[in-house]
């Protein structure tokens, strides 16, 4: 008979570590999908996901069962992703001279006729990833949660541990930062 989540967690807390494996199997897709929003390389995605599960095991005693386990796990995942972003800040100031041809074409199309530049184009996806990589960790986290995953400010506050006013301030600054990066890209491309 399939054990419930509560049974599995109780078993792990009693010392039966093997009961943790079904939880890892059940929720790893969600963890991996979230990690892929913040890391491009698959090796980094795997490292983040592994770190999430190791932390989840260590901190399982702190799970009180008031909310679903998935919510608790997602909080841990988001915070681990944020730690990863802070620890892997790459050079964000380099010029946009290495845009690929599809990316350049998409931008050209956007400049001439914005409605013809499709959001579904692979080039658009590559461009947005490039822009997100240049954001500061805070900005990237907020933009991803608020604008891309369409979460509410209250949800973001719960996931990150930030207060609601702080989320709003960081969201405002993140949008401004993204616009500055886009302006720089336009300048580098056309001047």
């Amino acid at each position, binding site marked *: 008979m399939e054990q419930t989540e509560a049974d599995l967690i109780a078993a792990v807390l009693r010392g039966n*570590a*093997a009961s*943790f*494996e079904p939880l*890892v*199997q059940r929720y*790893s*897709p*969600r963890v*991996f*999908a979230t990690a*892929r*929003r913040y890391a491009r390389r698959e090796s980094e995605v*795997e490292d983040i*996901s*592994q770190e999430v*599960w*190791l932390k989840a*095991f260590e901190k399982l005693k702190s799970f009180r069962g008031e909310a679903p386990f998935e919510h608790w796990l997602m909080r841990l995942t988001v915070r681990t992703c944020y730690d990863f972003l802070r620890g892997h800040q790459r050079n964000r100031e380099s010029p946009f001279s290495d845009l690929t041809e599809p990316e350049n074409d998409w931008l050209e199309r*956007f*400049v001439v006729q*914005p409605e013809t*530049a499709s*959001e*579904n*184009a692979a080039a*658009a*996806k590559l*461009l*947005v*990833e490039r*822009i*997100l990589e240049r954001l500061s960790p805070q900005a990237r986290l907020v*933009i991803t949660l608020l*604008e*891309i995953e*369409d979460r509410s400010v209250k949800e973001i506050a719960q996931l990150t541990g930030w207060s609601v006013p702080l989320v709003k301030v960081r969201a405002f600054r993140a*949008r401004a930062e*993204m*616009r500055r990066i*886009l*302006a720089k890209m*336009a300048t580098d491309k*056309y001047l």
Partner: protein
Amino acid sequence: MNIAELQTKLLAAARANPPGDRVPYAFEKRVMALLAARAATDPLVLWIRGLWRAAVSCAVIALLLGAWAFLNPKASTNADDLSQNFENTLLASVDQNDQAQ
């Protein structure tokens, strides 16, 4: 170039292309193996294991000594002799005074 519109379009592109949720083969097995290895090498776990072993050994020794003391008959009344000697020593000075008088 309309930067605000570009921002809107690019964010829409990100929403339209969510990342995959594929999990590498046997990932959960790797996680479990890591957890098992961590438990084995954690210094606190090793310390606790050592303490438990010491506690069990001490309990066994205490039981054996208790059993030996219980089962061995009393060899002499050394304890009685000792208490009598102690009393005699204490009262010796009083006895001497009595004799002197």
